[in-house]
């Protein structure tokens, strides 16, 4: 049903228009008095000691990688869930094997300490 996708583009156009139009209106009506101190990054009233673009702790990247792994696996579950009845026992067993692999990986990362934050 390709015609069901037409509204998406219409909708996103309107959604794009809202922030853009309001920001433009706001730009027209708001005052603009920049000052060196105003334009400084916020650091509780103190000049920042170092840059905020430094390398951040690796924990967050681990979370990102784990997310990619798990979320992609979740995507595989959707078509299976839709066709679940049709696939019957075969599909169930197949998916259980798949999930078992997933769970083994999950247990492994747990044991490895990747889920520990500190």
């Amino acid at each position: 049903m390709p015609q069901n996708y037409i509204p998406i583009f219409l909708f996103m156009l309107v959604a794009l228009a809202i922030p853009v139009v309001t920001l433009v209106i706001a730009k027209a009506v708001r005052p603009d008095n920049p000052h060196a101190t105003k334009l400084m990054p916020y650091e509780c009233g103190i000049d920042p000691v170092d840059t905020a673009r430094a390398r951040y702790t690796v924990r967050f990247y681990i979370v990102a990688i784990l997310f990619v792994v798990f979320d992609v696996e979740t995507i595989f579950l959707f078509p299976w869930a839709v066709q679940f009845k049709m696939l019957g026992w075969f599909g169930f067993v197949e998916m259980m094997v798949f999930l078992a692999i997933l769970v083994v990986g999950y247990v492994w990362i747990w044991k490895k300490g990747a889920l520990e934050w500190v």
Partner: protein
Amino acid sequence: MPQWLQSVVDYVTKSNNTPGWYADPVASAIWALIYIILIFTGVSIAVIAMNWLERKILAHMQVRLGPMRVGPHGLLQPIADALKLLIKEDIMPDQADKVVFWLAPVTIVITAFTVYIVIPFGPTHAVTDMNIGLLFMLGVSSIGVLGIIMAGWASNSHYPLMGSLRSSAQMVSYEIAMGMAVVSAVLMTSFKGGGNFFRQIYGTGGASVGTLSMIGIVRAQEAQQTWFLFKFFPLGLIAFFIFAVAMVAETNRAPFDLPEAESELVAGFHTEYSGFRWSLFFLAEYAAMIAVSSIAVTLWLGGWMRPFASLHGPNVEIPNYWSGGAIDLAFALVPALTFFVLALFAFIGTVRMPKHRAFRVQTIGLAGFALALGFIGLVLLEPHVRDRVQDIFWFSLKVAVFMYMYIWYRGTFPRYRFDQLMHLGWKFMIPTGIAVLILTAALGLGS
């Protein structure tokens, strides 16, 4: 009469709950446009109302009054705030990445609203019915994370950076659990009772299949005569619970409001944002809250279905009015009654206004508000209107319950710490999600 016009006319005159109007591209586009406008107005009003309600309800939980000055009982406060934010100076830090800084709120607003495309407010009240509605929703809401990271990174400041990293870690973690819960709901659509119905509509033939279409999911609940919340009790309930927790985390609300944890990170990822750009974040946050609540309602609470939708009661005939099941009739009166009660409250408020010159305008305003509510109630009594709108009413009522919960959480819970939040997400929600999924599948095989 061209075919697309015919279908438009059909849509207005018939309320037979068929999605047939999707068949014609032009009609589809026109109706989509109308719904787009309706949704944007509706969501904007809902955000404004939510803003006012949150402040009022929270205030009453905290033994204070909340906004009282702008308009009767502060009713116009959100509008005053919006105007104030519009004419406020907007500061962009000079070390910020200008383009990304500008793009971030725009991205977040677009994603927050785009989710509404797939939300069915009633069997025919939707922008479109996509066969991959759920996937679309999950995909779009993932882009929201991107907007937050953009905001944090572009600000080039410590607090926003930490806020955005926290936020992204939090959102992606809970998205997995959310996905597991959603898959179990999708599984449920293919079970007993749903089969024939889908064969009719989508013509897949053979065995019964599930669906990712949001309308289809509610239809499945209709056909199975149960909300998925109660399916395979307590499996549906657990899946719903996972989703309900994850959706609070996804929208960065208390007790999971770590990205903008005021007492630690000042304002988190939007610390550097000011003026209208800042208010766009809030618009997006409230829009997202309503959107995810709508999804929860669609997936587990029967969407637009009224409570006890399978009971109709004995047939009654009321001349010139309506005929049908007695229970249907009783429930059909609820929307109008609700508005009458609201009007009554507003009216009592009007009567209790201080009798003083200074309050005259406010009193008149509140009386006008009461009249407007009463008028809406009257309109809702009209059979044609009532029939077309009561779906939306039930849907909104369910969403409103979620909104109230959001406020309630905020009023009662302290904030989780980051490691505790990740612990909850990864070590409790995800295993539970997988377990529920497996159990649902196993039980589903037998049904």
